[in-house]
C-alpha cells in the first residue's frame, strides 16, 4: 500500500496542465478525484513517473448549460452533479445513475470526467454517456477535439486520449421534453460496483408512441455497449409486451460479458436482458416527466 516514487505537479490552469502534459505525457497521469488512481498506485498496479494534479485548475470546476447541452468541466465532482438542480432538471438519467456510483465519500472527490476517463467496464457513467450520446472534449497543447462515446471508449480501462491530451469537458444533450429514462443495475451488495446494469432513454411522440429509444449496458463486455438490435426492435415494433420481451432477448444475445469472481458471463447476459425489459416497461408505464 505504498506507491512507487513519482514527480508531482500541481498546475493552476488548464493551459499549464496541457503544457505539462506536452512535456511528460507518455509517463504522466492526470490526477483528478484520485478515487481510482490512488488505490491503483498504492497497489502498484499503476506506477506513473509523473502525476499532474488538476485540482487547482478552478476553471475546470463547472456544470453549466450551453444552449442545448450541459457542459461539465474536468473538475465537476460526481457529488456536485448529484446535488445539482440543473442536472436534476435537464439530465434525469445522469441524476438517477449517480447514487449508484461508488459511495458518498468517493463521489465527494471523484469527478465525472475521471470516471469516464478511467473507462471501467463496470462503471455507471460510461453507459450513461453512451445512452445520452454525450460528447467528449479532449484538449492538448495542440488544440481541442470532440468525440462520441463509441470513439472514446476503446476497451477495458482504455480510452482514446493521446498521451499529451486530457479530457477537459464532457457535454450531455439536455433531455427532450417528455423524455423518459431509467437506470437499473444489480450488484452482489447494495452499493459499490455492480455486476451489470442498463442505462435507457425513451422519447415518446404526442400519440404516446415510441419516437426513439437508446439503451446502453455496463458489465456487458470490455466497454459500455449500445444495444442497437434491442433499440431497433422497439423503434420498429413499439412498446408492446411482446416487443419488450423480444428486445430483452435481443440484448441478451448481443452482449459478450466476461466471467469474474462476482458472476458468470451467462448470468450477466441474462441479467442485461432482464434489466432491458424492466427499463422499457418502467419507461413505457411512466408519464412524461
Amino acid at each position, binding site marked *: 500500500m505504498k506507491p512507487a516514487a513519482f514527480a508531482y505537479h500541481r498546475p493552476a490552469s488548464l493551459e499549464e496542465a496541457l503544457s505539462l502534459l506536452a512535456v511528460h505525457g507518455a509517463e504522466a497521469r492526470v490526477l483528478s478525484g484520485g478515487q481510482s488512481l490512488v488505490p491503483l498506485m498504492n497497489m502498484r498496479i499503476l506506477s506513473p513517473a509523473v502525476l499532474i494534479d488538476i485540482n487547482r485548475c478552478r476553471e475546470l470546476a463547472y456544470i453549466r448549460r450551453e444552449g442545448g447541452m450541459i457542459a461539465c468541466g474536468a473538475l465537476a465532482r460526481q457529488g456536485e452533479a448529484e446535488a445539482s438542480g440543473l442536472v436534476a432538471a435537464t439530465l434525469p438519467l445522469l441524476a438517477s445513475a449517480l447514487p449508484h456510483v461508488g459511495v458518498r465519500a468517493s463521489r465527494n472527490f471523484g469527478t465525472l470526467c475521471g470516471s469516464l476517463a478511467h473507462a471501467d467496464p463496470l462503471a455507471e457513467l460510461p453507459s450513461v454517456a453512451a445512452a445520452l450520446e454525450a460528447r467528449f472534449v479532449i484538449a492538448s497543447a495542440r488544440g481541442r477535439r470532440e468525440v462520441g462515446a463509441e470513439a472514446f471508449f476503446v476497451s477495458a480501462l482504455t480510452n482514446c486520449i493521446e498521451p499529451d491530451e486530457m479530457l477537459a469537458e464532457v457535454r450531455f444533450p439536455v433531455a427532450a421534453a417528455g423524455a423518459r429514462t431509467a437506470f437499473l443495475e444489480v450488484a452482489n451488495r*447494495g452499493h459499490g460496483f455492480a455486476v451489470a446494469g442498463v442505462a435507457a432513454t425513451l422519447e415518446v411522440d404526442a400519440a404516446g408512441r415510441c419516437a426513439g429509444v437508446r439503451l446502453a449496458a455496463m458489465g456487458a463486455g470490455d466497454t459500455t455497449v449500445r444495444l442497437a438490435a434491442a433499440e431497433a426492435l422497439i423503434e420498429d415494433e413499439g412498446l408492446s409486451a411482446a416487443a419488450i420481451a423480444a428486445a430483452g432477448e435481443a440484448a441478451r444475445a448481443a452482449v459478450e460479458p466476461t466471467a469474474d469472481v462476482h458472476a458468470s458471463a451467462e448470468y450477466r447476459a*441474462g441479467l442485461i436482458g432482464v434489466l432491458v425489459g424492466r427499463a422499457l416497461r418502467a419507461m413505457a408505464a411512466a408519464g412524461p416527466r
Partner: protein
Amino acid sequence: MREIEDFTLIGKTILRREDSYLLRGKAQFLDDLPEPRGLIHLAFVLSPHASAEILAIDTAAARALPGVIDVLTGEDLAADVPPYAPVIELAGYRGVARPVVARGRVRHVGEYVAVILAESPYAAQDALDLVGVEYEPLPAVATIADGLAPGAPVVHEALGDNVIFRTRFATEGFEARFAAGEVVLEEEFSLGRVTGVMIEPRGCMAWPDPIATGITLWTSTQIPHIVRTAIAEHLGMAEANLRVVTPAVGGGFGTKCHLYPDEILVVALARRYGRAVKWVQDRREDLLTNVHAREHVLRLRVAVGRDGVIAAADLDVRTNCGAYPNHPFSPTLEATAAVRMMPGPYRIRAYRYEAASVLTHTAPTGAYRGTGQPSAFLAIEGMMDRIGRRLGLDPAEVRRRNVVRPEDFPYVNVVGVRYDTGSYLPSLERGLEMIGYDAFRRAQPADRLVDGRYRGIGICNYTEVSGTGAPGWRVRGFARMPGFDSSRVVVEPDGRVAVYVSQADAGQGHFTTFAQIAADRLGVAWEDVTVIEGDTAKTPYGTGTFASRGSVVGGGSVIRGSAKVGEKIRRIAGYMLGCEPSRLALGGGRVFDRDDPGRGLTLREVAETAYSMNNLPLPQGEEHGLEATDYYDPPMVTMANGTHVVEVAVDPDDGRVEILRYAVVHDCGRVINPKIVAGQVHGATVQGIGEALMEEIVYDGGGQHLNASLLDYLIPTAMDAPDLALGHIETPSIDTVAGIKGAAEGGLTGAVPAIANAVGDALAGLGVSITRVPLRPSTIVGLIAAARAARAGAA
C-alpha cells in the same frame, strides 16, 4: 459462587467510554504508535505460486537499493527461527510445522519467501520487486475434493496424504437406533471460504530495551499472553524478558487469535539487529495470508419418526485447513467444533460423527466468529426444514418437537456438554411471535409468489458455546490454551480503583464493562475505575479475548477479584471503626455499617491505612496494600442460545435476495451492559448476512487466490444492515460467576442458517434446494434455472 442479588450497575446501559476516542479517530492503533529511532521496516516477498520448489533467490539488486538494510531468505533465518507448530494432544492429529519464512518449498499463494529490512516502508516496498525468485511450479490442490482424490499431490510429503486430522465418535447402539427411524433424510451442506476482515489489518513492532535484554512486542492480537509464551519458548528467551502489548486493536473476530510468523520474526530480528523492527500488513496481505475460515462440507443423515422427532443423526464433516496448522488452534479447531456443536438445542440422543481436516495449497484456516457453529447449524437447521417438507409438518413445529425443553435442564448433550440453563423453546416462540409467523404462513400463497418475488421465512435456533474453560479446551486437544482468565483489582492510595485484566480488547467495550463490574462490586463511581489490559507486564496471565469468553471469564474474574478486595476493605475498616467486618457494606465510595449508614469511612480513608499513609495500625496479621488477584477457570463451556427468524423476498429474474424483516431473540444469561450486548448481536448478525449472501474467498483449481482486495471480496457495511428487531431473554447460568454467558458469536451463527432457510422456503415450490452459502444473485438464478431444467427433463 453464591448468588449475587444486589447489582447496582451490572445490567444497566452505560455508554462506552471507548467511543469518545474511537469515534473521534484518537485511538492509537499499531501504525499510530510513535516510532523509535533507528526503526527497521519490514516487507515480505510473497509466493505467487500455490505449490512450487524454490530453486534460487537473487537478493543482490534489492540489497543494492538505497535504504535497504538487508534481505533475508528462509535459509538465512533457518538457524535463528525454526518452523513452529501448535501443541495438540488429540488422537487422530498428525502435526506438521510451519516455517516462518519458506525454505525450499512454498505451499500457498502469499507464503513468505523472503523479508526486506529497510529504513522506510517505501524503500522496503521498492525492494520487493527487485528480489528475483526462481520457482519450479508443482501441481497444487485447492479444494477438499481435490485434496482427497486418489493420487492427489501431497501438501506435506512426510504425512503421506492430505488428511492431517481425523476423528470419529458414535453412541452405543447407534446403528440400531438409526435403523429404528421411520424416515431417513440425507443432505450435503457446504459453506464458502471466508475471513474476518478486521478494519485494521495486523501489524507488529518489536522494540529492544537498549540497556537490558528485554524486548517489547507491540502486536495487534487478541491473545497477548499466549503469543508471549509461544515466542519466548520458540526463540529460547526468558519469558520475563518479553513483554507483549496490544495497542488499540481494530477488530479481531478470531483472525487475530493466532500466532503469526511475522510476530516471531520481528522479535528475532530485533534481537539480531539490536534495533526496533516494525511490520504493518496491507489489505492484500490480510486477505492472502491471515487465517481464513469455513470451507466446510457437511453430510448429514437423520433417521426420523413420522412425528418429525429425530431418532438418530449421522454427520460427516470435512474442512479445508489450508497448507499449515496455525498456533494455538491447529486444524482440529473447526472440525471438532462443527461435530461437537451440531446437536445444538435439540434432543439428539443417538449420534455418530466423523470429521476430517484436509490439507490443501491454500492459506491456513482457523478461528473466525462462530467457529464451526454456522456450519453445524446450517446443516441441522436445514434438516429441520427438510423434515417438515417431507412429513408435511410446519418447520417451526418440527423444531418444537425436537428442542430441549425447559424441564430438561440441566441437560447433558450427546457428546457430554452440560447445558446448565437455557431458553430454547421460549426463545423460539418469542421469535415466531415477533415476526408474526402464524399470520405469515396463513397468508403465504401456495406458489409463495408476491408481486413477482418469492417470499419465505427461515428459522435458526442456535446454541452458542461461550466462556470455555480448561476442560473444554483439553477435550479438544488444545494443550496451549489455558482456559482461565485473571484480574488484579487494586484500590489505589487515593481510593480509586485500577483493574488489570488478562484479556485484550479489540473493540468489544471491555474498558466500559469491566469498570462497570468493578464499580458495582466495590460500590464506587464508575468514573473512578480504570481498566488496564493487553499488556503482559501489567496484567496477570490469561487466555485472551475470543470465543465469546470476555464477559464470562474476564468479567467473572473481575467480580471475584473485587469481592476479595472488598473483604479486605471490610476487615481494615472494621478494625478502624471497631465493629465486625460482616456488618459493613460498600457503596457510594464508602464502607459503612449496614444498620447505621452514617457510621463509615471513605475508601480513601481505608486506603490511607492500608498504604501506611497515617498513624493507624492494620489489624493483626493483615498485610499492607489493598488489592487482590483472581484466576478464574470457568466450567467446560457455558451455553448461550437464541433464535433468528427472517423473512426474505427472492427475485427469480435477477436473483436478488432482499431481507424484509428480521427478528433476533438472544439469551446470554446475566447481561452486564444491554447496549453493548445489542451491539454484539447487531455486528455479528451483519457479518452473518455477509457470509450468507456475499462473502467468499475464491481460489481457482490451481490454488491461485482470485479476490485479494475489498473490491472483489465483498463485506457488508452499515448500508447493508437491515432493521433488526431484538428480543432479550435473560436466563442466568447456574455454573458461571453471576450467571454470565457469552454473546459475541450467536448473531453470526444464527444468521447464516436462517437466511439460507428463508431462501430455501421461498424457492421450495420451484424444486430448489439451498445447500450452500453464499447465495449471490448469480447463484440463485443458476439454481432456479437448474431446477426448471430438471423439472422439464422429468416431465
